[in-house]
């Protein structure tokens, strides 16, 4: 899969970029790696606490509501919709990056716009989910849900849920801001003057990382 390079190429003997990418993009990769460890620490501490508990609330019971349909239980449907929205917005982001490679300003703007819409849709879904859980009595330090075996649950469940999805939601929010700035810069022709659209690529990396983290949050909180 790795990009083809001539055999015996001396990458480290000077005069070449050993990673074959622009400096900012490499630093974005390192930032994302450190951010992965931040999220990893949060999710693993959740895992540790959950493993040290004799029982835990059932996600199929807790996350079973959907807007509009009222009281009808539809376990995990809403959060799957959120996952789908984030995956779809990742696709539009890749398409924007691809269009940037072709210096196609109009297409970049179109797909960036769709990506921002996707991000806002995800944030709206999360706002609804949080509001709904809050109305059921869940918040930091308050847990109205029973464990799966009917015993009293601790507040660990809600504390971790709101902290981790909140931290992720904050990343999505930052991503929407970054993408909006990229859209404005593209619109004003900044990247055309520079001659390349590498900034879009860096924003894209961040956006995909947010999607990547959500994949793990989805598994840890809603499936396991």
């Amino acid at each position, binding site marked *: 899969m790795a*990009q083809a390079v001539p055999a015996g190429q001396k990458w480290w003997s000077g005069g070449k970029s050993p*990673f074959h990418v622009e400096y900012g993009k490499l630093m974005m990769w390192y930032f994302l790696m450190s951010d992965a460890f931040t999220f*990893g620490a949060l999710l693993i501490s959740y895992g540790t606490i959950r493993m040290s508990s004799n029982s835990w609330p059932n996600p199929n019971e807790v996350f079973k509501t959907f807007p509009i349909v009222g009281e009808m239980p539809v376990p995990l449907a809403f959060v799957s919709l959120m996952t789908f929205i984030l995956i779809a917005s990742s696709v539009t982001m890749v398409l924007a990056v*691809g269009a940037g490679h072709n210096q196609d300003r109009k297409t970049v703007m179109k797909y960036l716009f769709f990506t921002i819409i996707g991000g806002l849709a995800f944030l709206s879904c999360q706002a609804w989910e949080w509001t709904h859980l809050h109305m059921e*009595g*869940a918040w930091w330090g308050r847990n109205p849900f029973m464990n799966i075996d009917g*015993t009293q649950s601790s507040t660990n469940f809600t504390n971790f849920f709101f902290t981790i999805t909140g931290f992720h939601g904050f990343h999505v929010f930052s991503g929407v801001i970054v993408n909006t700035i990229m859209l404005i810069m593209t619109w004003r022709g900044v990247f055309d003057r520079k001659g390349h659209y*590498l900034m879009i690529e860096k924003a894209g990396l961040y956006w995909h990382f947010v999607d990547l983290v959500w*994949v793990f949050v989805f598994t840890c909180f809603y499936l396991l």
Partner: protein
Amino acid sequence: MDSAAIATPQTHHADKHSFDTRIIWRTFWILTAITIFELAMAILYYETDFLPKHILNGVFLIMTLAKAFFIIAEFMHLGHEIKNLVMTTAIPCLLFLWFVIAFVSDGASFRHLRNQYDRYELEQSKTPVHKTEQHPEAKKPGVE
């Protein structure tokens, strides 16, 4: 910014061909299919208990890692970068192997020890409470 301009000629044209929209859409369908599969398994388990939960969890973890692989390799394009860059990000992430195993097993050990030595806590955690009984602190703030 200047370094970007210098790097452009090499980084840019070399991998232009690899931004294939066909592959992007294929990745999208793979990710969607995996998510639907996970959802189906979760609901099936909820309705019928067709598998032991720990086996199902193993399936979920494998599916998650598969999704992560596709996002990193295709969307983040790491699969198309040169090996140096792949390794410099992938190798530090191997720390996660230790990180997950050490901490999760520590949690399990703590539960085991507490159940063994704190019988009162164990008894409390095995006593079901009535569904209607609300946690004293579970009331909405501001509502009496």
